[in-house]
């Protein structure tokens, strides 16, 4: 009979959750069933490689915390977790999402910190700063503690598990002789603490780990509540003080562990600088930065590959260890940067998520889709150590000194050659730091497990030397005979991982830059993190020729043998001999790059939460490689040796699956390829969708504020390509950050943004079709420059004068264009019309106060009949209800500068088809053209109202109507030029890149988004030109395949893809995903069927009920 485990223990949790895994997390917090559908969808589709993703600290902006009373936080944090499921279904108003504690625990998310067991007892001397939060929660803790202190052996039944769901399991069973932790150090208080406090705790943990090396042991002891009951079961050979194995629930699943010594030390004995020492070898480690691969011209790629292969050839004679590992994306770091860059976020509205919630949900989203950043290390094993050296080291270790200084000095000189070879163009490697090596070692021992991210070594930099290495003590490894996977268990966090190691088997010829992706980068298109280890011997020309010649002789002798025996030799012998001859010829006569060979073993580690998940992922990976690259990945037995091979310094698992290849092919593996785009300081807008998945952040003011470039961004896509939605989303995100946003959306769906609860008080909709007379009066649309905008002195005066006359000229041009648009096209085309208009425009002073009525008056007072006729024609137009907008003076305070978000629409306006001649347009359509022109001006006009340096954003949809008119071009040029001066981000959407190219402003464009263009190859190549991607290189097909629908599915496409070029010229395919913003997509949905629903539904939107249409489908097309 299995005894019921005591509450709070990891096992109790397992029993409740009904699974057999060593997770402390799953049962401690509301179960997955309680989470909403979308959470499941996210996790099912994009399985999280690091189950501890909740452990990555979530940064929360301090703003919201400030304006919330502590009482609420404390009370909430106690009560919420108990009914965490309610959170998703309840109305949004009372949800106090501001509580950082709540954010980490109450939400039905697995991301609760798995580190709870070890963090709990190690927060010394933490002064309670939030009285309520620390008092209420630890009250529970303290109660448990005392109860257990009195009855340490009392195992079960006394506490209901639900009542103690917050108890970190180790606490409840913490050894009695260990000094008790004050209640205030308990985990929840720690997590409720603002960032500064959290750092204190982290520092404390580190200190504790350093002071008490046996702490981990005790923690493990604590995890075994019923150990005391069966001491006789312990194997005799377990040393004293060593914790016995975790006992399991039933006899059947008891792991056998008596067959091996429980701990083996790694071969590496010392890390010194960037060198690692094993008893026999010394390895120098280099960090290979990521290189851009996607959307580069093939010539550039080939140049890169040949540079890298030359570097490999330069390492002939050495054994390399190429390791690729990952680091979870530091979402908290990003959020801190965003918050720092957002001085005035939108004030919180009751019942709507605050700025801080917004950041938290963005971070959650980042963590849930599991973006990992790759890290590539290259180790060069370059020296054999003599017996003397190794014995000296052993001797010196006894005195705490390690490798002798003389040896290190000597090696330091030798290793300089590699700096030279690897630092050049190609790999651009740099020496790693000891901290990075520690990270690599930890990641290799705990293969595919989530890193100890709460104490992220990279962001905090407060790891002591050796801390990470000490954490490897906690990683247990389990294997089964003939097993296809390995199991790793972290004793500290209870995390369990199943890992399958695949070996690169037979490879067919690859055409790397032209047709295929780099073959060790290719796996990154799958949505989970994997690890790569390649052990390669680089053979120089001599060695490789000798090797090949030997093989050739064997083949020849076999042929001879067949001939002697009078049997027909198999034809492949002759073929292979010929090939060997050709290769041998290349080797002897070619460059070292052609002759150098790389003989090596390439492995990929795939991890999963369960064995089934791991095997399923391995299957998908194998399938992907065999289908797309014709590389057969093999899944050999003896996985434990293979896993060990990932650890630097450990021996090679076996001699099988040795791949012999030219160094060029090894260079084309390019595991360090990456696709990053965007800046690191903007809003999260999606992820890259090309060869790997990285989050994409975009700050529309980054080009102006940092890069000192223009802020013109261009969006090009076919109708339905998602331009408007992206425009709206960017507008929303900017408005959230307090940027003054003006969106011009002629068709009107973006107006629904203003009804979002968080924006409602700060936004207004201006519907031009229902506006007053004079709203679009062309004269007042061009702002008069102010003297203050220019520098002092005569130079400033002169600039001001020029700006003034420019403004006047622009006004005249605009008025002339508008008048030509208002009169019938036949009339407008006549030379006399242009002359008369020009005359009239010259007569009327080109100031803001002038109106079109002045032009009409001027025309009618002309003494020739044509002038009067033209005036009459204009007056005829003025009778139409919409045309009154052009006449008269603009109403005062039309565009108040106070609204953060202003959406200008023209609801009900029929836009003409530009392909049809103007003569055939209806009167209404003809009027739409000048309206659009002036509306664009109006949208921008507002930005010239406030201070020059404040951030402004203008989104202009349907910009293709600007083409063909000179005022249109001058408008965009002026916009691009002014954008830097006025800190104005201008987003211009158009259906055809030709409009932008035709306006000849593409060199002023800093950011480009190109959506699906499938219909017209010509348009596609123009879009590529806009992206500055080589044309006719096959990338047109990429544009056509963007946002490709799965024809088998009848559901709507839930995402939109774009090719994006950022201000730094990086081009990447991205998938826009703003589903993390509650309700945003519902409000942006422009599809006819669902367009009517959100307005009505928005009032009853609950946090969990949003449909989140942008969630990627479970089986993505590119996977």
């Amino acid at each position, binding site marked *: 009979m299995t005894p019921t485990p005591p509450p709070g223990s990891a096992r109790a949790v397992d029993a409740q959750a009904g699974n057999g895994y060593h997770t402390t997390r799953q049962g401690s917090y509301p179960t997955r069933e309680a989470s909403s559908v979308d959470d499941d969808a996210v996790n099912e589709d994009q399985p999280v490689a690091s189950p501890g993703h909740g452990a990555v600290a979530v940064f929360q902006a301090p703003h919201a915390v400030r304006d919330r009373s502590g009482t609420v936080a404390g009370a909430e944090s106690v009560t919420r977790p108990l009914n965490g499921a309610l959170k998703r279904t309840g109305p949004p108003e009372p949800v106090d999402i501001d509580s950082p504690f709540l954010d980490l625990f109450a939400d039905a998310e697995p991301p609760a910190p798995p580190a709870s067991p070890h963090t709990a007892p190690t927060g010394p001397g933490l002064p309670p700063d939030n009285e309520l939060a620390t008092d209420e929660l630890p009250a529970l803790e303290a109660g448990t503690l005392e109860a257990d202190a009195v009855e340490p052996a009392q195992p079960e039944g006394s506490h209901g598990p639900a009542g103690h769901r917050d108890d970190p399991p180790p606490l409840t069973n913490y050894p009695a002789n260990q000094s008790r932790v004050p209640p205030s150090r308990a985990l929840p208080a720690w997590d409720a603490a603002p960032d500064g406090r959290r750092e204190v705790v982290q520092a404390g943990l580190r200190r504790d780990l350093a002071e008490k090396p046996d702490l981990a042991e005790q923690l493990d002891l604590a995890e075994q509540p019923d150990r005391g009951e069966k001491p006789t079961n312990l194997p005799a050979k377990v040393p004293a003080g060593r914790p016995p194995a975790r006992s399991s629930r039933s006899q059947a699943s008891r792991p056998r562990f008596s067959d091996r010594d429980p701990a083996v030390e790694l071969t590496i*004995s010392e890390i010194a600088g960037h060198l690692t020492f094993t008893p026999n070898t010394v390895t120098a480690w280099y960090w290979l930065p990521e290189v851009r691969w996607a959307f580069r011209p093939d010539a550039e790629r080939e140049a890169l590959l040949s540079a890298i292969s030359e570097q490999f050839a330069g390492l002939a004679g050495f054994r390399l260890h190429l390791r690729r590992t990952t680091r979870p994306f530091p979402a908290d770091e990003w959020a801190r940067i965003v918050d720092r860059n957002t001085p005035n976020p939108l004030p919180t509205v009751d019942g709507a998520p605050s700025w801080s919630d917004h950041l938290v949900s963005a971070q959650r989203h980042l963590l849930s889709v599991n973006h990992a950043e790759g890290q590539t290390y290259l180790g060069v094993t370059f020296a054999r150590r003599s017996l003397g050296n190794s014995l000296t080291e052993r001797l010196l270790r006894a005195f705490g000194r390690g490798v002798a200084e003389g040896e290190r000095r000597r090696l330091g000189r030798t290793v300089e050659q590699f700096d030279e070879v690897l630092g050049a163009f190609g790999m651009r490697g740099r020496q790693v730091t000891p901290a990075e090596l520690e990270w690599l070692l930890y990641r290799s021992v705990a293969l595919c497990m989530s890193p100890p991210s709460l104490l992220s070594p990279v962001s905090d930099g407060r790891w002591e030397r050796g801390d990470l290495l000490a954490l490897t003590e906690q990683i247990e490894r389990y294997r*089964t005979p003939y097993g296809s996977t390995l199991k790793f268990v972290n004793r500290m966090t209870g995390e369990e991982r199943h890992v399958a190691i695949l070996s690169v088997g037979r490879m067919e010829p690859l055409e790397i830059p032209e047709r295929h992706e780099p073959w060790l980068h290719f796996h990154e298109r799958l949505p989970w993190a994997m690890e790569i280890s390649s052990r390669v011997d680089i053979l120089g020309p001599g060695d490789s020729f000798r090797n090949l010649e030997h093989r050739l002789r064997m083949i020849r002798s076999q042929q001879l043998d067949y001939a002697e025996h009078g049997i027909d030799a198999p034809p492949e012998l002759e073929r292979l001999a010929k090939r060997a001859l050709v290769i041998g010829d290349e080797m002897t006569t070619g460059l070292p790059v052609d002759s150098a060979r790389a003989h090596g073993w390439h492995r990929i580690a795939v991890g999963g939460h369960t064995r089934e998940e791991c095997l399923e992922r391995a299957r998908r990976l194998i399938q992907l490689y065999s289908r797309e690259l014709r590389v057969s990945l093999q899944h050999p037995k003896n996985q434990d040796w293979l896993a060990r091979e990932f650890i630097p310094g450990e021996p090679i698992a076996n001699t099988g699956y040795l791949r012999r290849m030219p160094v060029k092919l090894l260079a084309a593996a390019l595991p360090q390829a990456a696709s990053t785009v965007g800046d690191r300081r903007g809003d999260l807008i999606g992820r890259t969708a090309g060869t790997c998945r990285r989050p994409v952040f975009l700050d529309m003011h980054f080009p102006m504020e940092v890069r000192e470039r223009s802020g013109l961004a261009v969006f090009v896509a076919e109708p339905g390509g998602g331009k408007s939605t992206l425009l709206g989303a960017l507008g929303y995100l900017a408005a959230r950050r307090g940027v003054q946003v003006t969106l011009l959306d002629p068709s009107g769906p973006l107006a629904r943004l203003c009804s979002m609860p968080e924006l409602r008080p700060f936004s207004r909709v201006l519907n031009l079709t229902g506006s007053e007379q004079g709203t679009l009066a062309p004269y007042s649309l061009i702002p008069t420059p102010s003297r203050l905008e220019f520098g002092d002195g005569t130079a400033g005066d002169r600039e001001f004068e020029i700006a003034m006359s420019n403004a006047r000229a622009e006004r005249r041009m605009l008025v002339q264009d508008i008048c030509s648009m208002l009169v019938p096209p036949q009339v407008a085309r006549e030379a006399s019309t242009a002359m008369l208009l020009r005359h009239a425009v010259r007569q009327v002073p080109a100031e803001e106060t002038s109106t079109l009525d002045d032009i009409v008056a001027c025309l009618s007072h002309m003494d020739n009949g044509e002038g009067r006729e033209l005036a009459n024609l204009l007056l005829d137009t003025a009778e139409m209800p919409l045309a009154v907008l052009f006449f008269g003076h603009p109403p005062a305070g039309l565009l108040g500068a106070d609204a953060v978000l202003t959406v200008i629409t023209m609801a009900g306006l029929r836009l003409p088809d530009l392909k049809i001649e103007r003569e055939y347009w209806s009167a209404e359509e003809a009027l739409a053209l000048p309206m659009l022109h002036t509306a664009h001006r109006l949208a921008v006009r507002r930005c010239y109202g406030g201070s020059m340096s404040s951030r402004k954003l203008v989104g202009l949809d349907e910009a293709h109507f600007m083409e063909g008119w000179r005022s249109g071009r001058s408008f965009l040029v002026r916009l691009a030029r002014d954008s830097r001066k006025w800190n104005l981000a201008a987003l211009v959407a158009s259906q055809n890149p030709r409009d932008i190219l035709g306006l000849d402003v593409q060199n002023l464009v800093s950011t480009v988004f190109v959506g699906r263009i499938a219909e017209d190859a010509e348009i596609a190549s123009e879009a590529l030109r806009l992206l500055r991607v080589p044309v006719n290189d096959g990338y047109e097909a990429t544009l056509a395949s963007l946002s490709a629908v799965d024809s088998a599915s009848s559901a709507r496409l839930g995402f939109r893809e774009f090719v994006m070029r950022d201000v730094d010229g990086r081009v990447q395919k991205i998938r826009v995903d703003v589903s993390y913003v509650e309700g945003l997509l519902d409000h942006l949905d422009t599809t006819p069927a669902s367009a009517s629903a959100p307005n009505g539904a928005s009032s009853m939107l609950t946090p969990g009920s949003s449909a989140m249409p942008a969630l990627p489908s479970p089986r993505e097309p590119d996977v």
Partner: protein
Amino acid sequence: MRLRTDDDIYRARLVYLGPPGYTLPVHLPYAQYGLFVLLVPLFVAIHYLLTFHVEFPAWEIALAMVTTSYIFRHVDPDRPARVVIRTALTDWRRTREPAVEQRDARLVASRIRVREELV
């Protein structure tokens, strides 16, 4: 760039056809003969340990032949005989994956000395 491995050259099947002038009826890879030659004395030794006397190793030869052919059924260019034998020796207890894991030694890196700078 068309890039291909050199593996096919190393994948050529090299077989022993027999002594000059006499072609064996079966052509087996050289490695198989090598393994056979190693296995016969091994089985003879085992036989000797069991019975303490030596006779003509008929049974041993037969056993070695069977064993060799069995091992080489699992051998391919990417999986040398050495690996197959090693796997068989470590995992001989079962031929199918059992449900129970056994714990392996933990690999511990905590003894590694870390020095900030090389010199």
